[in-house]
């Protein structure tokens, strides 16, 4: 069976759902209308553009070009993370903590997958590297941005409680531990849900795509398992790193809470 090819008219029909959503939130005055519409337009522009770019990159298979695409992906992920923060760190840290931990976790997990399991030849084969990097990066980005945002907002909200503990002689990491724990949990829940619900409640996106495109379901399932392991590893590492670097930065070596290092959007 050959995969059914989609026409642009099919996409237009699906877009009705997004517009409907936007209209509903507008009628209920939930203040999300603009955000939904912008996100809808972005998904069209971004994915079509990426499809075009990848087609070219795959055809040329030039290492420099592949590296350039990877760098662009990291830059955009970093921007997304910092713009998801209700309270971000002032100065270069606002960008740096999210970007640094995301990049580190993504690179580690991608390298692990490339050299440990998938072993494409050459190792930078764009058909493997770019989609792999993309899906890992996306999940790490989610884990990091959710955890970071949860931690910083919780710290601002719990300021008196934290400072009470510090004033009684508790060190900064002990005082922040419960908040780190719950921030990490928020960041990890999506991927944990994805793993426990996989196949039972939802058919994962990639597996659905592969089956629709004609792949043997068992082979598609094996790929999906590998991927979910990579994603949970990446999201966990990234979120963990972000929560610890942020806890270190929001306090100082004299065990003080330094909310002055945060800016509100």
């Amino acid at each position, binding site marked *: 069976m050959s995969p059914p090819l989609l026409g642009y008219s099919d996409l237009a029909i699906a877009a009705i759902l997004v517009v409907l959503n936007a209209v509903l939130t507008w009628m209920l005055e939930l203040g999300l209308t603009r955000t939904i519409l912008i996100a809808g337009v972005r998904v069209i522009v971004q994915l079509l553009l990426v499809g075009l770019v990848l087609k070219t990159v795959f055809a040329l298979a030039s290492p420099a070009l592949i590296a350039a695409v990877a760098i662009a992906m990291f830059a955009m992920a970093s921007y997304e993370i910092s713009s998801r923060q209700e309270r971000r760190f002032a100065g270069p840290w606002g960008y740096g903590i999210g970007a640094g931990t995301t990049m580190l976790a993504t690179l580690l997990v991608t390298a692990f997958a490339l050299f440990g399991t998938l072993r494409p030849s050459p190792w930078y084969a764009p058909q493997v590297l770019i989609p792999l990097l993309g899906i890992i990066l996306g999940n790490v980005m989610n884990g990091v941005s959710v955890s970071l945002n949860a931690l910083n907002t919780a710290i601002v909200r719990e300021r*008196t*409680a934290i400072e*009470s503990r510090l*004033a009684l*002689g508790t060190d900064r990491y002990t005082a922040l531990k419960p908040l780190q724990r719950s921030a990490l949990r928020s960041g990890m829940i999506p991927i944990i849900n994805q793993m426990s619900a996989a196949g039972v409640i939802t058919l994962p996106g990639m597996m659905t795509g592969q089956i629709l495109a004609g792949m043997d379901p068992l082979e598609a399932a094996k790929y999906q398992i590998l991927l979910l392991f990579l994603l949970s590893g990446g999201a966990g590492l990234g979120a963990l790193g972000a929560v610890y670097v942020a806890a270190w930065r929001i306090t100082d070596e004299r065990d*003080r809470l330094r909310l002055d290092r945060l800016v509100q959007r």
Partner: protein
Amino acid sequence: MKIAERKSLCMLKGCALRRLHLGPIDFALQVGECVSIAGKSGAGKSLLLRMVADLDPHEGDALLDGAACSGMPASQWRRMVTYVAAESGWWDERVDAHFLPGTDFAALFPSVGVPAEAGAWPVARLSTGERQRLALLRALTPQNRVLLLDEPTSGLDAENTERVEQLLRNRLSTGIAILLVTHNLEQAARIATRHLLVRDGQLLEEPS
């Protein structure tokens, strides 16, 4: 015994928060002494206490028995020089989780007019006044040398104010010192031996 002959317990040297127009302040606190601090709201009374507890970055240094705050871990300093904020913070759901393990609640709580069984309560069940008194109580440990108290009895009725003052007098007699921010001049007269005023970022002797 004259004040000048007593041993200086805690000293501030050039402590300043220039960004917030406070200080530089030099000040010495004697063993067993309770010093009241008055001043308009926003004058920097709480900032001064926070600075002594090293809770905000500041210039200068504080010394306890000659040992510099900057020369020891901040947590160690704060177990000896303990700040109790006007607004109490609670980091767990149950009341007893905020006290050291092994605390005898039945003996301790009634001394500030809180029911003995309140240890097992959720914090949300405490009234504002009960929270204020328990926040003071949990800060009292054998390690305290200086207590930095920010309005410890604001909003308490006469009976509970008396209980808190009695508690503080007992602690003073064990050889600690207290810096007491209070708006209540009668209270200052009752338990403090020296009265200071924060004005224009400076700590002044209040003309009596």
